[in-house]
């Protein structure tokens, strides 16, 4: 049995600072993240979709949710599967089984990025300080999922719910501290 109590997430040291922000900002550590590659028109994609209980999203900059698994469109033949903690092996096995002998690739990238949930009516204003994407509810409704730049780091922004301003951000682990520092700074004026 693998001991998981000694794990440390990239923003473990920032939790108190994030908790003190005028928006709700919370790291969701240790999520299962699998990078998936398959021809969207090929047998693997269809089979994986069936295994997950839906169809892999093919519209750029969108995400679909099947049960507990978010499927984020990353590219025309690339998706990120996002699932609760601890499902790396099981989910990878499911997907690999679905791929079978067809062409497709699954890579465990769970620790490559960390996830941060941002919630609150002023999240858009905060993100606008570093992100050039139009996150207006009409331009980015729920299910939108953009890979872009936030200040000077790459970021994936998943719009969970546009009316309640519920966002999930994925940021590369090595940039997480920078991201947190930027976020704290960007929130500085909101408290006024």
């Amino acid at each position, binding site marked *: 049995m693998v001991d998981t109590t000694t794990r440390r997430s990239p923003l473990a040291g920032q939790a108190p600072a994030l908790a003190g922000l005028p928006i709700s900002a919370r790291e969701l550590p240790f999520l299962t993240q699998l990078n998936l590659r398959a021809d969207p028109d090929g047998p693997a994609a269809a089979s994986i979709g069936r295994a997950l209980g839906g169809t892999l999203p093919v519209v750029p900059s969108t995400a679909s949710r099947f049960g507990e698994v978010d499927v984020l469109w990353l590219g025309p033949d690339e998706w990120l599967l996002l699932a609760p903690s601890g499902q790396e092996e099981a989910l990878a096995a499911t997907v690999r089984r679905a791929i079978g002998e067809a062409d497709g*690739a699954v890579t465990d990238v769970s620790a490559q990025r960390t996830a941060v949930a941002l919630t609150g009516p002023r999240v858009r*204003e905060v993100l606008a300080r570093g992100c050039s994407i139009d996150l207006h509810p009409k331009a980015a409704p729920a299910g939108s999922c953009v890979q872009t730049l936030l200040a000077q780091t790459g970021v994936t922004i998943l719009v969970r719910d546009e009316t309640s301003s519920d966002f999930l951000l994925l940021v590369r682990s090595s940039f997480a501290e920078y991201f947190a520092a930027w976020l704290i700074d960007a929130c500085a*004026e909101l408290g006024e």
Partner: protein
Amino acid sequence: MSRLDATSRIDRGTDLRFTFDGKDYLGHPGDTLASALLANGVHQVATSIRFGRPRGIMAAGVEDANALVQVEAPFSEPMLTATTIELYDGLVARGLSGQGRLAAEPDPARYDAIHAHCDVLVVGAGPSGLVAALTAARSGARVVLVDDQPEAGGSLLGSAEQLDGVPATTWVSATVAELAASPEVRVLQRTTAFGYYDDGFVLALEKRTDHLGAAAPAGVSRQRVWRIRAKQVVIATGAHERPVIFADNDRPGIMLASAARTYLHRYAVLAGREVVVFTTNDSAYAAATDLADAGAEVTVVDARPEISPYWAAECARRGIAVRPATVVIGTSGNGRVTSAHVVTAVDGSSGPRQGIGCDLLLVSGGWNPAVHLYSQARGTLRYDAKLGAFVPASELLDVRAAGSARGAFTLAACLAEGRLAAQDALTALGIAPGDVPLPGTPEQPEEVPGHVLWSVPDHREDNAPCSSFVDLQRDATVADVLRATGSGMTSVEHVKRYTTIGTAHDQGKTSGVITSGIVADALGVDIASLGTTTFRPPYTSVSFAALAGRDRGQIFDPVRVTAIHPWHVKHGALFENVGQWKRPWYYPQRDASGSFEDLETAVLRECRAAREGVALMDASTLGKINVQGADAGEFLDRLYTNIMSTLKPGFIRYGVMCGMDGMILDDGTVTRVSETEFLLTTTTGNAAKILEWMEEFAQTEWPELRVSLTSVTEHWVTVPLVGPRSREVLASLAPDLDVSNEGFGFMTWRDAEVAGIPARICRISFSGELAYEINVSAWDGLALWETVIEHGTPYGITPYGTEAMHVLRAEKGYPIIGQDTDGTVTPQDLGMSWVVSKKKVDFIGKRSHARAENNRPDRKQLVGLLPVDPTKLLAEGAQLLASADVPEPPVPMLGHVTSSYRSAALNRTFALALVRAGRDRLGETLYAWQDGELLAVTVADSVLYDKEGARRDG
């Protein structure tokens, strides 16, 4: 005092104390520094940069070329225009002579930036802009309206115009209220759109707390750069009045006519009691009559022989003398102007020079539409001979000018153009424009065409230097322009640079077109074909602090850290920047005396541990790319110089990638995970570049190959465990793993649990010692590191940094790509022909390796250097000479030192170098030039330690 009791936009109920040039004054909210000074009778605010001539306030806005001041308190800031500083309590300022002084202490204010998106961006909240914004807002479009003034209204604030029969400001208030109540409309006052940067991207600077002075709340950004992406842009930026140039046109008290009118209506300031208005057009008559109504004694000097009957009557009614066919040819005054010198044309020739006493000389030479943004948006301009100005002439798809910015000068036309521009913009967006009725405007008198007059010839007969100033801030005169054209310059761009006209803070807002006019006249060419200088951003000065925004201090640039970083910090590591990464450089320990080791001591100790005991480092920053697919092997064969497809699962191979030009791009290891999966590493700084490079081939050149690439750089933490005792430490950490050389050979990998953590262990070595590279999930990285140290402590395990790593690899002659190579080095140059496949038909770089140039025997090759004095450390970068007898320049250089260290293992200094035909020079003595002396060095093999490789198996 020049302050009147008339209605205005200032708040007389509140006094603001301010200090100018050491004297204390009072003003009011709503004042600018300029209006408050004028209200206090202060006209001279600065002295000119070259000639030290007294200078005053010539405008009421951003176009002022004169009134530069230095704000001293609350925070020192140089070169602001008095006409754009909103007055605040406690302001301390002084006039400048052209140049200011930067604050010596850091600016405590916060500056930030924010992105905004809209369907329609309207620039300018004058009559055109307000109607445009309202039209767009009522259609439901997302609208941003920016305006540089504290309140909307534009020219309506400084005039006595009426709309729908009531003061225009009433209509302004109602419009602003409706816009403010529209959920999709954002109105930004005190915000200057200072540049148009392609595809509807407009940068605007919002001055958020400047006007509050020391009362500015802490934590609120002082200035904010708005990064606005607009689908459609309506430019309603108005126009700047243009002066006419004449001798001694620079005295305090000489002002643009419309500025005096603005000071009167907006600030209740009568800028002078005895006023001469020198005009070439009808617009200045409003100033003349309004100032007369306010109690001034006014004389109008009109360059045109024919006077508008309407204005003649209005003047007559007020007792204003009007002199047709008359121009101002000079002025007198000691400081402020006291007299305007005029001549009247009689029967085609000049009459006698006459003086008219005055304390205010107003000038109007017509109007220049503020076409800056339009021009930046690649809108072409057309010379309008009637206006004597350049006006927008393009049909742009997403940028439209409206109102005075487009050359319309009646209120009714400005309102109509604003609405039309917005309607066109909405139509282009597929949005149905709403109906916006325009407010009623008073009937306009019939206009007498203006007379285009750039400058009045200097009639003085003495030989005094020319004092007809074109650019007051630069002290550049008509004579300077003529000197430029006399020198053969025929382009206004050249004249600008020769004379410096238009290069000051105001960027030639009042002088640019006049310069074109003077040049055209001097050259006898048409100004329409001559054109203007380029309207470059920024439109107004923007401080570097604002442009830097939050990209400063801690978040100036991302700092990338590994999962183990907290341990490094806690244990006193000093860090080296590698790209954006922070990597432990070395870990200084306290010596017996309690002080910390220096770099040299620490690195010798760390190296010794790796060579004699056991050491570990954090190598997590290495780029890692997962390559999967049925054709993954074939794909890697095409990119690496050596063969990867023959690598068996369970094995690892070192590989080199070259560019098309055959030069080394990167190196690293390739691990074959399975038949269809590889994991490769890149150098730390090249990770993103190499992934993009590989993707380019996978996606564009060889799309038929079934291969996919995924970055896993940060998924893994990588810890090399190095040294003869590493095997014992690993055995203790992974009791189930066969760590013997037979059971776990060099260049193979195993999956095993290390201290209970799932790990992939690779037997690779970048030091030449027995080594195991342990890879675990980044989440487990810190726990792994701490546990390895715990288990290694009985063996004296020592963490080492990048410096020791460099020494260890250099002793083995392992190059660092980017340090020992520079983009002109082939694998063969490094003595690594063994890594270049002879069997493969092709790989990237192969054809270039066959070029004659890349096969010259005298190419620079990597060799070792041993200083003859083993205590001397060569400087990296030192040039190498063949002889200590330095010939006359140019001295032939044989190469340079690429890496240089002190070696614990060799007990001496050593270096790597790229040396012309280096491998043929083994044993030769060369000379390294450094610090003014020549150090003798012996050329050696690049592998200086354990050449037979006896140590790698422990």
